[in-house]
């Protein structure tokens, strides 16, 4: 009963629940734009596989946030999948620690063509704050070809969605 009551009360929570939390202005229009592009270019769905190669964990948390009921990126046609074999796109965070280089390469190789790689967060670009560490490969581009970078440390959920639009439009 409580669940049913809550479901009705919360409705389809795709908007900010509360005006005092409404830092998400523009989400609906941005989302509609993303949906349109994905409809056209990926016939309705873009499947993303995420790999963490040594980030601090904040980027993962923000990627998960894009799937929460407030942003709900899935309704725009983006879904995060459990296997590289199901994926169109590989989303990589972290500077690539030496221990993860091989796993990253293998994950990339396991993806079917056509495929592309997006990096997310400052350390994925060139190592960022971990650039001078002895045990990193200084960015994803040194291991696999990268098509696009989403900047931020970490990027906010809405920024991730906007960046995806910028990239997909140009593609």
């Amino acid at each position: 009963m409580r669940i049913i009551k809550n479901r009705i009360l919360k409705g389809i929570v795709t908007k900010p629940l509360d005006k005092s939390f409404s830092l998400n202005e523009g989400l609906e229009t941005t989302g509609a734009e993303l949906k349109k592009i994905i409809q056209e270019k990926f016939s309705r769905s873009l499947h993303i596989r995420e790999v963490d190669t040594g980030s601090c964990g904040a980027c993962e948390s923000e990627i998960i946030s894009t799937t929460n009921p407030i942003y709900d990126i899935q309704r725009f046609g983006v879904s995060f999948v459990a296997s590289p074999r199901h994926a169109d796109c590989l989303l990589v965070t972290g500077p690539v620690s030496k221990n993860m280089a091989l796993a990253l390469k293998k994950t990339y190789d396991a993806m079917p063509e056509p495929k592309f790689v997006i990096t997310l967060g400052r350390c994925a670009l060139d190592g960022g704050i971990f650039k001078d560490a002895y045990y990193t490969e200084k960015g994803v581009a040194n291991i696999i070809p990268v098509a696009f970078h989403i900047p931020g440390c970490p990027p906010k959920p809405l920024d991730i969605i906007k960046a995806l639009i910028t990239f997909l439009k140009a593609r």
Partner: protein
Amino acid sequence: MDYKAVLKELNEKLGVETKTVFLREDEIYLKVNLNDFKTTCLTLHKVLLAPIASLFALDCRKDSGVFEIYCSFASAKCKKWFFVVAEISGDDPKFNSLAKDIYSASLFEREIKEMFGIEPYGNPDTRRLRLHSEICPEIYPLRKDFNKPPARGKAEDYVFNKVEGEGIFEVPVGPVHAGIIGPGHFRFSMAGEPIINLEIRLGFKHRGIEKLFEGKTIPEAINLSECVSGDASFANSLSFCTAIEKIAGITPSENTQMLRAVFLELERLYNHINDMGGIAVDVGFSFPAAFAQIVKENILQLNEKLTGSRYLKNVNSPGEVKITWDKEKAEAAQEALKKIYKDFKEIKEILLSSVSFMDRVDGTGVLKKKTAEDLGVTGVAARASGIAADLRKDFPGIYAKAKFNPVKQEAGDCLARLNMRIAEFEESLRVICDFLGKITPQPQMASNYNIKEGFALGYAEAWRGALTYWVKVNKNGVIERCKITDPSFLNWQALSFCVLGDIIPDFPLCNKSFDLSYSGNDL
């Protein structure tokens, strides 16, 4: 209890006089000969009834030709951290292993071996933790004379513990997992359905953070500490800053301390609610999970409103917090927290009133108190198994003003850990509201301090458990050595014990009920 009584008892039991070389309000350093190091640690361990908080080495060969080894214990009774210090010769570095007598020393010793090349003599397990043997040869990166990046070594396989017997099979999982989560390798040995052994191999995210700290100035190092574990960035920067404050001899104002406590508790709130949702996800109960995600997002947005950062980064500096505080912020926070509490109560009731949910979490993944003590488990996991250890109570500082009430559970199963999070969420909310009423508005203050040469321990009760930073600053005012002991480092071991006898589908549930950091463990 006075620390002098402890020292007296220690000296009587040992039969030799230990030398107190350094004393601070909450730290005491005892210097012993390397030959007495092991017995001193064991005796202190028994006298204090405390687990090893940290065990680490230092390369001082440039100045004195020796390595130094430090073993620390936290004593709630004397409100002091005890450090046993010994010197190890630089020519043939080795020391007597503690691992056979104190199990929790084992991981620290393996770390010392791979990072410094100091041999823990008598430790039965000297496999490497982070510098995987198939990736690089032995390089000892924390030695001061290490400078070149590792060459790719000869492939040398890591040997997993093997269970043999009829019908026993292995299930390897990872390093890349199905979810949006960090990398780690889990090797299950199964006899039919039940798990009879689980070996966890981590270190995939190792970047060499401790080495990276060396030579950094204080502001640079604070930024780096925030990237040690992104979901506990405030606790990390707080621990680091308290260490620097002790070295520089400054005390932050009460207002600053209360603000810090508010942010530390906000960090706890968003992570605890995230875990409550995560536990629901892992049993396929999606409604409360989605609900919890909404609450988490609300807390993150509150964080942004208060500090400009969703993950409370760039807030701490030695002696100050780098933000303004006014009445509007306090009111906004109070209002937001009221709504958050309402939603939280709903989630709690949905979870605890579902019979099928309770059936999954009740009695699953039991971590026995004895095991938890042997492993030196800290934080939520320890308190769920009946160990009353919480730095907010043991070394209360500003928390004494809010009359902080620690919570504890006895059962040690997933439900106990869930109940811990629920109870801590409520207590944290109370503490935040208490402090919000006491904090007076303040403008942004410049952090004003003169860094000196010295060393100190900084600590905070992060949401996972006790987080400590032992920092040494050299005469140029840059970091000489920074040893981070993340709560996940010891708690990962506990996970491999608690799943025994359960089935593989219960593993994600147990894993989430601990919710440990890959990044903080791997460094």
